[in-house]
């Protein structure tokens, strides 16, 4: 066991650092520490620009194989990249859905044509992706999706509704789970379609969250179209592909998320020092607990990242979502308790919230989206611990 990095890896670190120092400034200065979950809708245009700058310098998709435009870096280098990106205050990666979800899915399941068409603009930061999985009646029960696609000539024609789609307004493409066999049930008869967003058959309606912001949207498909070749992994084979997408996430990118958490924690520590609650023994305990918890998220991630490529992620892999969402939820409460009465006062009317207030409110969705805590616990019990379904 070794938590330090080799000389070569440290050289890579310097390279990353130099790029960020040279580029994350000027017009991009204001992006520092912005974006990411809860703040995903902030500075989107500028972050798209930033994504292109990254792409031109070859810093998008660095973990992808070289043949697909990546750098093929090791997991350790990914860790280093994330550490440095965060240390520099790099903004929430606008292209992360393409880079971490769609890209790996195409690399694994896509046709040569699909790879050729779709991977390069992800690497360059030219095209953004969003995810079309959840529906109003298919949340925890994802297999209940009702959005339908039928082949009309050379095109899939899509009818239905997706929900909780983030960055839908800015995305060029969406990967959409559709029922392509009208007589099918549950996870059979579903296809994984790639659908262009800029077309008349698609309407995007923002969902106002309790923060007053609209990070998520509903996406209505009313005769939306995509070419018949834009199906990944075969017609009616989409469930397998969708589940595969989830498995590609090894967690290097969670280090970026942890960095956001660390920034938030530092804000709270500063606030506590300033308002004197850093002397309150209860608050001290809870701040220490939050600090320990964040360390644990990091070491959990490092353990997962140290698993050999292709090997089972093990029990520790299964707890990741539950662990970070609970951490963030508890942290949000702590942040408000540190602020005390001031926690209820917004920065400005009508509802201009500071970052801690946003984190507090937004963290309540952390335990819900991408598999509620309850679903996560089912999955842990059934898959990691082998407990029976019924």
């Amino acid at each position: 066991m070794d938590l330090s990095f080799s000389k070569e890896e440290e050289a890579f670190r310097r390279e990353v650092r130099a790029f960020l120092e040279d580029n994350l400034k000027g017009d991009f200065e204001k992006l520092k520490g912005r974006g990411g979950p809860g703040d995903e809708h902030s500075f989107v245009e500028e972050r798209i620009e930033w994504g292109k700058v990254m792409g031109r310098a070859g810093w998008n998709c660095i973990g992808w194989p070289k043949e697909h435009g990546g750098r093929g870096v090791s997991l350790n280098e990914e860790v280093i990249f994330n550490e440095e990106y965060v240390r520099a205050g790099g903004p929430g990666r606008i292209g992360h859905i393409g880079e971490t979800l769609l890209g790996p899915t195409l690399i694994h399941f896509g046709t040569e044509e699909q790879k050729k068409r779709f991977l390069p603009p992800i690497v360059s930061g030219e095209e953004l992706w969003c995810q079309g999985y959840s529906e109003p009646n298919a949340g925890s029960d994802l297999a209940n999706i009702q959005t339908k696609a039928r082949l009309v000539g050379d095109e899939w024609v899509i009818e239905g509704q997706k929900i909780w789609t983030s960055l839908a307004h800015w995305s060029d493409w969406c990967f959409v789970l559709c029922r392509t066999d009208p007589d099918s049930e549950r996870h059979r008869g579903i296809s994984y379609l790639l659908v262009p967003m800029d077309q008349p058959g698609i309407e995007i309606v923002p969902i106002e969250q309790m923060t007053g912001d609209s990070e998520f949207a509903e996406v209505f498909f009313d005769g939306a179209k995509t070419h018949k070749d834009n199906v990944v992994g075969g017609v009616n084979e989409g469930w397998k592909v969708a589940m595969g997408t989830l498995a590609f996430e090894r967690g290097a990118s969670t280090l970026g998320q942890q960095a956001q958490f660390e920034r938030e924690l530092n804000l709270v520590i500063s606030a506590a020092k300033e308002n004197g609650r850093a002397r309150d023994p209860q608050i001290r305990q809870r701040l220490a607990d939050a600090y320990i918890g964040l360390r644990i998220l990091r070491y959990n991630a490092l353990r997962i990242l140290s698993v050999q490529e292709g090997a089972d992620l093990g029990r520790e892999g299964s707890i990741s979502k539950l662990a970070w969402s609970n951490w963030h939820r508890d942290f949000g409460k702590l942040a408000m308790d540190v602020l005390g009465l001031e926690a209820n006062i917004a920065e400005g009317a009508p509802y201009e919230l500071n970052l801690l207030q946003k984190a507090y409110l937004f963290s309540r969705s952390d335990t819900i989206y991408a598999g509620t805590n309850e679903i996560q616990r089912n999955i842990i019990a059934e898959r990691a611990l082998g407990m029976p379904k019924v």
Partner: protein
Amino acid sequence: MHFRFNEEQLELGRAARRFLEVESTTDKLRAAFGSDELYDAELYRRIAEELGWLALLIPEEYDGLGLTAVDLMPILEEMGRSLYRGPFFSTVCLGVNALLLGGSAAQKEEILPLVAAGEETLTLAYSEPHGRHEIDAIETHFEERGDEFVLHGVKRYVLDGVSADRVIVAARSKGSVGEEGIRLFVVPGDAEGLTRKRLPTLDISRNEAELIFEGVRVGRDAVVGADLDGAALLESILDRARAALAVEQVGGAERCLDMAVAYSLERKQFGRPIGSFQAIKHKAADMLWKVESARSIAYAANVAAASDDGLLLRELASSAKAYASDAYFFCASENIQIHGGVGFTWEYDPHFYFKRAKASEELLGHADFHRERVARAMGL
């Protein structure tokens, strides 16, 4: 010993629910959001005139009903349930209680009939920008100049502080420290030298304000509780308000439970109502456990308030405020979780309760503050 509401109290509660379910809805809250209107004055007038709730605690000699903190509970519970936004709590639980405990005959005679009729609202300004709840943390001070008192200082997080017709303000004699030298004054809301600023709040169901006193002058007749120990008087007022707030919190918490259960029966996943899953049922059971426990201690605190048992009230008010705060927060949180995705949208109601729960938790003292107070009452 009989620890239930009597029939009149039950009917008061039922009437309050019928009224507030129609008049104090989250739709109205959403609609009012962002406007300059602090609260629905017409609704407040009806509460005073049609329902007489403002008169409830006020003795009959001042045009009131002469009832007690226990009789007030059914209304507070329903106001908690419905997130009532008007200045009822500030006027009755803070203002009226302050005058009842410390007001001079002249003050009561002048002010209470106006309050009972809904013509004037009150509030209490005690918290300050540092946000500490200990009495000895009060920094706002007064100087005695002949027959006048001159007030300086900043009060913050004052409930309905902008709209209140009169503000009862806690200050200390200049140069005093600790719990010595504390005095309360009743100050007209439009007094010269008093600047009032509305604070934008996360919890949009309650108004908070900052009040800046820059040489506000009041006469000797403005002193509340001239013959009393000011710190003790203030604590007594706050303890009654804490007991009352706990009941309001119970109402809010129970509403979260009811909302969660109703949604769990309606929302289907995996072909069955999510309320049939043990994970959801057990959450709901824990919510009920906490709601009913909070209710027991909150009711007991108000029985102590009604029977003027100050020492017991102190302990029970803190117990009730501590427990009810945690219970409300728990229920409001689980309500969001049970609602899933829609639970964190503006469109659905859970977030309003989640925010009011958090704001109420800090109001009049956080649970930690109150547990420490209980520890002292225990002789620790």
